[in-house]
């Protein structure tokens, strides 16, 4: 059976929604951790503390993970609506993923060259964002 462009798109949007759910769980967990001061999240990794406790982990006092939660929820919502044929959701989905991709590049740069430490939750999130970016590129353009 040959998949039509529309079917491929629906499958890709569905995959994007599932990836966004994983990211949503990760970001929600880190947001709660940042708000409570809970540190067991790092499981004894000093590098993880250095990243999550750095000044780069907050923007105007708000944990970066909170922005991640909103972004992943946005991706989930837009991907769901796009899978159901809402054309405008596709545009918003691409824009949100593009913004997240740039933010991820910046956060990876900070970890690698400024803090010299990596947080595994942040790397997991980065992998998810790269996956979402690949989907955004692969999804056939609608006419």
């Amino acid at each position: 059976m040959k998949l039509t462009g529309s079917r491929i798109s629906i499958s890709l949007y569905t995959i994007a929604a599932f990836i966004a759910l994983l990211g949503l769980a990760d970001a929600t967990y880190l947001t709660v951790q940042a708000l409570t001061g809970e540190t067991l999240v790092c499981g004894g990794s000093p590098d993880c503390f250095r990243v999550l406790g750095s000044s780069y982990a907050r923007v105007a006092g708000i944990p970066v993970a909170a922005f991640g939660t909103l972004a992943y929820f946005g991706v989930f919502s837009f991907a769901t609506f796009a899978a159901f044929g809402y054309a405008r959701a596709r545009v918003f989905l691409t824009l949100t993923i593009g913004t997240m991709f740039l933010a991820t590049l910046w956060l990876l740069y900070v970890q690698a060259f400024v803090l010299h430490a990596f947080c595994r939750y942040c790397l997991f999130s980065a992998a998810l964002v790269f996956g979402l970016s690949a989907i955004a590129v692969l999804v056939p353009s609608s006419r």
Partner: protein
Amino acid sequence: MLYRKFLDLIRATILVACGFFSMKRYLPFFIVGTVALVTLASGALLYRAKRLPALAIPENSTTSAMGGTEMVHVRGRTDAPVTLVEFGDFQCPPCATLADPVNKLEQEYRSRLRLVFRHLPLPNHKHAREAALASEAASLQGRFWEMHDLLYREQSVWSKAPDVRVLFSAYAGMLGLNIDRFKKDIESEQAKARVKSDEQQALALGLANTPTIFINDHRVPPAQLNHSGLRVAIGAAMNEKVLK
């Protein structure tokens, strides 16, 4: 009769739900709404489970826990009948072990128990003094007890760290403190003076080991430094207070 009505109700609910979901345009709203609710609910539950106990009274209250009136770190009501004073060292493993039972007792006794913490960093613990200074630097931003709990909880991590300052700054960041101010405060004379004052108090009492616990000015024997032992001592202190 009632059973049949119940069945009818379920049947009607299923029919309404099927009708709702057959209207494809509402389904994405339902999915997104459900995920939003589940995320909010799980986040709120996680927050409730993990948040640190709120301070009952302001930081750095003046108290007379050991007889004199001076600045000490207090957690609990000022009119609590029982005061537990700990002379602790953040790098001492038995102190970290005791932190959990003490927190449990605090939750158990609530307004009837007040905690006081005093520093006694032992010279054989390489990072103990810096940890004490870190807690004082956090105290200058009103978060002593949060840093206290964090240092005990993460003792096994920072005790082995080559550059402990970096980790302490990271902890300050995790607690939402101003990191630049924290870095300055950890070197400040004010923080050093606070730690020194507690050490002098310990010296005056002839203390050389941690943890040393006093309950209403009575020293708790080392063998009793566990949850049940402290519970007995707190109970005795309460009875004594009632008899007076």
